[in-house]
């Protein structure tokens, strides 16, 4: 086999003959459409790919992919397939279809078709070689196109989600005259930490805040960089004349802060948000009292 391959590589068939071969190939694939399609769908189910989709859905998508595939072999233009791959990705990504599944099914189709070519030309070895020479580059290009289309779509979705998260980010809220709270939820990466600090410092200036309560109950852990950033935020707030109270430190974060050697004299911490707000009210001279007769509605 190797020697034969080497010979064909040294003497590739001329361009016209590739076109002729592809035409013949396309005719063969059109003729056996039903059978090959079924074979392919069966192999997909067997390989346990696209488990998020029903058998009928797989068959319907397989038909479209098959037709697109044959068309690309015929015309050599991948634009329609690209558009289809993007469209398909848009539909199946939300259902949890993974990249390896998409690449897997396209490779399966390539194999199914190659097998049928082997079966058809098994008597004429030279012809088979020529057909495969024409088929393989085209098939690989198709596999490439579909995989790239899928990955690009995924990346687009990820970018979109990142933007959404950034916009949600974190509000700086005024709960009383001169008292701000900053509830932080989720993972803090350096970019978000920086954004938080900017928002907070600007909030202190615009609201003329004296006390800020930063609540990090919703933050499970932070690395030493972000912990350092938190300490810097506290110090920068002091330069603006505001006192920061940090509340809701998890044991892990407490550990991180101790490990980086934070000066506890600078950090004012209270167990939970309620305690933090009470402490802030004390600093500001507020006294919250329950009126004796509470309204009946409660």
């Amino acid at each position, binding site marked *: 086999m190797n020697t034969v391959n080497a010979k064909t590589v040294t003497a590739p068939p001329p361009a016209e003959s590739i076109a002729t071969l592809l035409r013949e190939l396309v005719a063969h694939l059109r003729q056996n459409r039903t059978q090959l399609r079924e074979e392919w769908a069966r192999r997909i189910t067997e390989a346990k790919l696209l488990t998020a989709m029903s058998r009928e859905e797989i068959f319907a998508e397989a038909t479209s992919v098959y037709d697109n595939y044959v068309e690309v072999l015929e015309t050599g233009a991948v634009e329609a397939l690209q558009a289809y791959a993007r469209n398909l990705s848009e539909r199946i990504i939300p259902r949890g279809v993974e990249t390896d599944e998409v690449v897997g099914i396209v490779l399966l189709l390539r194999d199914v078709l190659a097998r049928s070519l082997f079966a058809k030309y098994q008597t004429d070895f030279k012809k088979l070689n020529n057909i495969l020479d024409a088929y393989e580059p085209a098939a690989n290009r198709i596999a490439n196109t579909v995989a790239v289309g899928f990955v690009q779509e995924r990346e687009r979705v990820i970018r979109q989600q990142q933007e959404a998260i950034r916009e949600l980010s974190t509000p700086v809220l005024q709960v009383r005259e001169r008292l701000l709270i900053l509830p932080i939820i989720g993972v803090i990466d350096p970019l978000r930490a920086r954004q938080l600090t900017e928002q907070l410092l600007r909030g202190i200036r615009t609201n*003329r805040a004296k006390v800020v309560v930063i609540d990090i109950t919703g933050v499970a852990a932070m690395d030493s960089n972000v912990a350092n950033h938190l300490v810097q935020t506290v110090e920068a707030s002091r330069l603006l*004349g505001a006192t920061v109270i940090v509340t809701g430190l998890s044991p892990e974060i407490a550990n991180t802060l101790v490990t980086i050697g934070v000066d506890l004299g600078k950090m004012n911490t209270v167990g939970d948000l309620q305690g933090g707000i009470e402490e802030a009210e004390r600093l500001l001279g507020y006294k919250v009292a329950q009126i004796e007769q509470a309204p009946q509605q409660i």
Partner: protein
Amino acid sequence: MEVPILKQGHYLIATFQAELSDADLLRLRDALVTQVGKFRSRGVIVDVTVLDVMDSFASRTLRDIAHMIRLRGAETVIVGFQPEVAFAMVQLGLTLEGVPTALDLEEGLLYLDQKTKVREYELGTLSRGRGKPLS
């Protein structure tokens, strides 16, 4: 560029008008420390609202001013740090430890009022009142 020092009641107020050279900062320091004694001021406010940058020399000089004035028997408060300046300073490790800071001039005056009242109370001079402001 000279920094004007205004006398306001018992306080001295120095407002930066532009970026200062190192020599200007030292002149300001000497002037403030001298005038605190001359006017028997109880507090000094240094307003840095116009500054867009604060280098290590400036921040060390501010700290020196605060400490020297404390030794001369008065309080100092630095006011008007821009948010960006504050964060940049902290990142450079210039945290002005032990130096009181406030948001703006108004807050600085309030701070000094509180601080000097406590001091008068501690010194037992509150009952005599603050006396007539020097005119």
